[in-house]
C-alpha cells in the first residue's frame, strides 16, 4: 500500500513538474515575445531617431532642397552611411520624385507613394530584391514638408540574432506569399531553419493558427529539436504577409527535468528500500513476538496451554509475553479446577458419573487383568432417611460412606453416580474374586453410621457386571451392573450378578415392546394350546386347553411369552394382548364346539388385566360374541399377582365369576398367600406349580405337599390342577391322590393349532364332546 501511495504521489509530482517545465517554457516564450516587441520598437525608435536627425540636418535639407538628383543621392548615401542604413531614399512631398541609393521597384515606389499620401506612421517593412528592409521615414521640413527621407535597414540574420540574444528566443521573420511561407531572416541555425521551413510549408495554415493565439503556443517537434512556437504578424505588404515567429526550445529544460526526475526516482527507490529494510527490522522485533503471542493465544483457544511463550526483552513486548504466560497458567489452573469439579462429585470427592465412565473405558482399553468387575450399588430407602432426618444428615451419611469406601478400596476407581448410587470398577484375576469383592462392599455397611449422634444402619443392593463376559463397553457394563442391581433390589437380595435374563431393557426388548401392538393387529400372535386332562372318572379326558400366547416375529421367529409378557405389561400393550388372547381362545372354543368337541379354554391374565377394570365387561362381550357359556372360559392368574391388592381383586373377580367364568390361581405355592385370603377369593381352582410335581415320584416332601394341597383345596371347594406332569407314573400318582386335572409334557407340550388337531386325532385319551343340543342353544 505504501508503494501504491508512493507511485501515485510520484506520478502526480511528475506531471506537475513536467507541466511546470512546459509552463516555464511557455512563459519564457511569451516573455520573449514581449521583449521582442519592445526590442523591435526600440530598434525602430532608434532608427527613427537617426533618420529624423538626418531629416532635420541643415546641410541635408539644403542639399536635398536646392540640389539636383546626383547631389541628393550622394547626400543620401553619405547620411545613410552615417547611420549604417542599407538604403537611403528621398521622395518628394507629392510623391512625384524619387532619389534613391538603390534602384527601387515600382512596387516599392507605389507603396511609398501610398504612404506619403496617407502621411501616417514612420516605418514600414518592404521587400526589395528578395530582401526584407525596414524603412524608416521622416519628413524633411524646410520649413514646410518638402518631402520624405527614408532609410532602409535590412532585416537579416544578423538582426534576427541580435534580437534573439536579447529575447532569448529564436526569431524568424516569415514572408507568406500565396500561403507559401518562406523564411526571410532567422536567428536559427541552418538545419533548424530548414526544418522550420518544411514544417511550415507542410501546413501553411499553421502560421495563422500560431499568430492568432499567443497564449497557447504550438509545439513543434523533430529529431533535432523540441520547441514551442509563438508569433505575431508584423505587417501586410501588397501581396504578402510578414510574420515573426518566436520559438523556444523545451528540449533542454525537458532534458534537465528528466535528469532531475531520474535522480528523484533513484532517491525514491533508495528511500523505499531503506524504509522497507527498516520496516522489516522493526517488524521483526515487534511482529515476530506478536505473532508468537498470537499463536500462543490460538493454542490456548484450542486448549493447549502448557507451553510458555518466550519472554526475552525488557520492553513492552517482553512484559506482554510474561503476562501472557501468567494468564496461560491461570487459565490452566482454572480449567484444572473446573475439570476437577466436573469429574468429581462435590459432596463426596468421588468421581462423577461421566468421569467414571471415562476412566472405566480407559481400563477396558488397556485391561491390567483378564477380568474387570463393575459394581453398582444403591442405598435402600435412602429417600426415607433424607425425608426423616433432613438432607444435611443425608449428606453427612453419604460423605461417611464415601470415606469408608476410600478407606476400603484404596486403589479402586470409586464413583458416586447419583443421589444414593455408587459404583466402582476393579480388575480381578478370575471369577473367584468376585464374591470377596461383593463382600467387601457389603462390609462397608456392616457397622452403623453416626450422624448427629444417631446411629443409622444402612443397607445397599449391589449389581455386578463383568468384562469381557457381559460387555466390552463401559456404558454397557455400567448399565448391566445397574440392571443387576435393580434385580437384586426387586428380589431383596444383597447382590446380584448380571444375567441377560434380567435384562428387561435391552434394545431388542425395547424394539419388541414397540412392535407389540402392531404385532397383535397384524396377527403375528398365535395361540399355542396345552391340553389339560381331567382325572375324574376311570379314564383321563381332555376337557380343556391352556392357551399360551406365542409371538411369531417376522425376524426373530417365535418369541416365548416370558420375553414379551413383561414388555407388554410395561408398555401397556398387555390389555390388547389379553383381549386378543381371550378373543382368539373363545373363537377356537367355538370352533371346537361346532365340531362337537366341548373343550374349554384357559387364558392367563395378569394383575394389570385384572385391575384394569373393564375386564369383566370385555369377557361378557366376547362370550356373547361367540355364544359360549362362561364355564368354557377359565382365566388363570398367578398367586402373587392377586396378592398385590387382594380386596380389589376380590371384587373384580366376583364380577367375572358372575359370568360363569372360572378362575384359576396359577403357580400356587410360590407366592405369598394365606389360606384365609384364599378362602375369600372367588376362585375355582388352584394350579400347583410344577416344581412340586416334577419330582413327585422321587420326593416324599413333594408328595406330602401335593397331597395336602389337594385335600386343602377340595376342602375349600376348589379344583386342583397339577402342572409339570412329565411321566405316566406322576400322572398315576396324581390320580391316586385325587388331583382333578393334570397338565404337562407327558400329556403334551403347548402345541400350535394344527399340531393340536393332529394330537386330538391320535390321542388315546378321550375328548370331551358336546351335545348337539347344547350347540344349537
Amino acid at each position, binding site marked *: 500500500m505504501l508503494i501504491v501511495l508512493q507511485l501515485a504521489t510520484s506520478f502526480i509530482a511528475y506531471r506537475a513538474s513536467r507541466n511546470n517545465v512546459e509552463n516555464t517554457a511557455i512563459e519564457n516564450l511569451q516573455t520573449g515575445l514581449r521583449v521582442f516587441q519592445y526590442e523591435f520598437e526600440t530598434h525602430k525608435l532608434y532608427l527613427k531617431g537617426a533618420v529624423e536627425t538626418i531629416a*532635420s540636418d541643415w546641410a541635408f*535639407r*539644403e542639399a536635398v532642397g*536646392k540640389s539636383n538628383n546626383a547631389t541628393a543621392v550622394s547626400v543620401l548615401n553619405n547620411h545613410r552611411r552615417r547611420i549604417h542604413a542599407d538604403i537611403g531614399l528621398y521622395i518628394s512631398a507629392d510623391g512625384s520624385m524619387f532619389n534613391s541609393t538603390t534602384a527601387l521597384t515600382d512596387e516599392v515606389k507605389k507603396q511609398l507613394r501610398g504612404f506619403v499620401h496617407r502621411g501616417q506612421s514612420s516605418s514600414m517593412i518592404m521587400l526589395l530584391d528578395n530582401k526584407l528592409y525596414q524603412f524608416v521615414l521622416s519628413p524633411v*521640413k*524646410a*520649413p*514646410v514638408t518638402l518631402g520624405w527621407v527614408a532609410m532602409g535597414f535590412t532585416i537579416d540574420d544578423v538582426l534576427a540574432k541580435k534580437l534573439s540574444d536579447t529575447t532569448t528566443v529564436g526569431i524568424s521573420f516569415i514572408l507568406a506569399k500565396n500561403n507559401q511561407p518562406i523564411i526571410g531572416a532567422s536567428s536559427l541555425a541552418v538545419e533548424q531553419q530548414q526544418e522550420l521551413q518544411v514544417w511550415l510549408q507542410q501546413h501553411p495554415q499553421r502560421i495563422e493558427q500560431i499568430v492568432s493565439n499567443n497564449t497557447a503556443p504550438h509545439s513543434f517537434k523533430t529529431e533535432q529539436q523540441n520547441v514551442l512556437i509563438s508569433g505575431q504578424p508584423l505587417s501586410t505588404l501588397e501581396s504578402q504577409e510578414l510574420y515573426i515567429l518566436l520559438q523556444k526550445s523545451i528540449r533542454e529544460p525537458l532534458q534537465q527535468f528528466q535528469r532531475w526526475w531520474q535522480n528523484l526516482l533513484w532517491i525514491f527507490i533508495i528511500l523505499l528500500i531503506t524504509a522497507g529494510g527498516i520496516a522489516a527490522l522493526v517488524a521483526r522485533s515487534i511482529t515476530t513476538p506478536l505473532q508468537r503471542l498470537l499463536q500462543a493465544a490460538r493454542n490456548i483457544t484450542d486448549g493447549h496451554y502448557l507451553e510458555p511463550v518466550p519472554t526475552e526483552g525488557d520492553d513492552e513486548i517482553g512484559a506482554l509475553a510474561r503476562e501472557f504466560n501468567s494468564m496461560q497458567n491461570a487459565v490452566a489452573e482454572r480449567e484444572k479446577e473446573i475439570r476437577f469439579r466436573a469429574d468429581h462429585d462435590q459432596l463426596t470427592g468421588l468421581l462423577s458419573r461421566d468421569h467414571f465412565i471415562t476412566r472405566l473405558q480407559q481400563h477396558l482399553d488397556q485391561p491390567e487383568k483378564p477380568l474387570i468387575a463393575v459394581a453398582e450399588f444403591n442405598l435402600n430407602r435412602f429417600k426415607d432417611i433424607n425425608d426423616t432426618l433432613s438432607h444435611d444428615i443425608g449428606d453427612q451419611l453419604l460423605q461417611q460412606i464415601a470415606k469408608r469406601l476410600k478407606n476400603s478400596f484404596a486403589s479402586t476407581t470409586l464413583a458416586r453416580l447419583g443421589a444414593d448410587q455408587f459404583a466402582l470398577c476393579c480388575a480381578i484375576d478370575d471369577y473367584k474374586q468376585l464374591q470377596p469383592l461383593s463382600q467387601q462392599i457389603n462390609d462397608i455397611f456392616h457397622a452403623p453410621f453416626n450422624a448427629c449422634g444417631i446411629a443409622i444402619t444402612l443397607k445397599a443392593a449391589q449389581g455386578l457386571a463383568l468384562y469381557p463376559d457381559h460387555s466390552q463397553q463401559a456404558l454397557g457394563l455400567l448399565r448391566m451392573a445397574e440392571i443387576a442391581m435393580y434385580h437384586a433390589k426387586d428380589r431383596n437380595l444383597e447382590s446380584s450378578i448380571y444375567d441377560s435374563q434380567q435384562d428387561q431393557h435391552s434394545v431388542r426388548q425395547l424394539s419388541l415392546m414397540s412392535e407389540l401392538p402392531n404385532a397383535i393387529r397384524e396377527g403375528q400372535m398365535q395361540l399355542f394350546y396345552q391340553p389339560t386332562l381331567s382325572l375324574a372318572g376311570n379314564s383321563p379326558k381332555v376337557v380343556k386347553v391352556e392357551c399360551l400366547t406365542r409371538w411369531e416375529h417376522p425376524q426373530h421367529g417365535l418369541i416365548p411369552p416370558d420375553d414379551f409378557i413383561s414388555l407388554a405389561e410395561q408398555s401397556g400393550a398387555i390389555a390388547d394382548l389379553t383381549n386378543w388372547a381371550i378373543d382368539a381362545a373363545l373363537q377356537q372354543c367355538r370352533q371346537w364346539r361346532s365340531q362337537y368337541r366341548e373343550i374349554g379354554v384357559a387364558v392367563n391374565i395378569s394383575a394389570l388385566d385384572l385391575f384394569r377394570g373393564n375386564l369383566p365387561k370385555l369377557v361378557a362381550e366376547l362370550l356373547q360374541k361367540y355364544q359360549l357359556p362362561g364355564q368354557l372360559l377359565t382365566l388363570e392368574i398367578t398367586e402373587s399377582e392377586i396378592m398385590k391388592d387382594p380386596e380389589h381383586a376380590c371384587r373384580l373377580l366376583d364380577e367375572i365369576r358372575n359370568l360363569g367364568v372360572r378362575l384359576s390361581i396359577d403357580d400356587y405355592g410360590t407366592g405369598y398367600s394365606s389360606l384365609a385370603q384364599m378362602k375369600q377369593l372367588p376362585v375355582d381352582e388352584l394350579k400347583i406349580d410344577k416344581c412340586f410335581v416334577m419330582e413327585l415320584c422321587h420326593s416324599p416332601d413333594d408328595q406330602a405337599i401335593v397331597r395336602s394341597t389337594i385335600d386343602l383345596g377340595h376342602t375349600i371347594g376348589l379344583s386342583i390342577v397339577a402342572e409339570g406332569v412329565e411321566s405316566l407314573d406322576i400322572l398315576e400318582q396324581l390320580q391316586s391322590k385325587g388331583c382333578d386335572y393334570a397338565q404337562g409334557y407327558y400329556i403334551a407340550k403347548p402345541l400350535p393349532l394344527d399340531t393340536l388337531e393332529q394330537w386330538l386325532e391320535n390321542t388315546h385319551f378321550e375328548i370331551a364332546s358336546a351335545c348337539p343340543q347344547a350347540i344349537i342353544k
Partner: protein
Amino acid sequence: MSKIHFTLAAYLLTLASSALSGTTDIEFLISGKDGDQSDLTGMVVTLQPLDGQKIHTQPQATEIKQQQRQFRPFIQVAQSQQTVEFPNADPVAHHVYSFSQPNSFELPLHNKNNLAKHTFSQPGVVVLGCNIHDWMLSYLLVTDAPYFGQIENNRLQLNNISTGRYQLSLWHPAMPKKEPSKVIKLDTETQAVKVQLQQQLSPIVQPAVPDDDFDEAGDY
C-alpha cells in the same frame, strides 16, 4: 490755412492730376468662394498693367521682422529687385533661409545688431524658415507687378492707379492651386472691384512658438 483746406487742396490736386493723367483710386473687395469662411487676411493682390500704363508708384522697401521668435508678418509681398529687410527684434539670433527657387537665400545667424537684408531678383513664392527655430515660417510673394497690396478685412485700397487694363492676380499661401487671374479695366469712374475666389482655401495657420521655448537669460 486750416487742415481742411489743405486736404481739400490736395484732393483737388489729385483729382486734377488723375484727370489729366487718368489715375483712379480703386477699392478691391475680395470674397471667398461660396461657403468658405477662411480668413483672407494677408491675401496678396497684384495688378499687372497690360496696356503699358505709366506707373506712378515708387518701389518700396519691405521688411519681415523676426519678433518673438516669429516672422512678422506671416504673409508678405515685396517687389522684385527691391530690398527686403529682415530686422531681428529678438534677443536670440536667427538663421533665416529659404530653398524656394529661384529665390533661395539664407541669412546666416544674425542677431539684433546685424541688420540683414536681401534683394530678390525674380518673382515667385518664397517660403521662409529659420534654421534653428523649426517652427518659424512665413510666406513672401515676390512680384514684379507695379501695383500690389494685401487684403485686410477683405478689402484693399489702391490709389493713383492709371486707368487702363490690368491683369488682376490673387495669391495666398493657403491656395491649393493657382487662382486664375482676371483681366480688369479700370477707368476714372471705377471705384470698386469685386472679386470672388474660385477655390476654397486650405486651412493654414502660422505655427506657434512651442510652450517650452524660453530662456532664462532673456529679458522678457
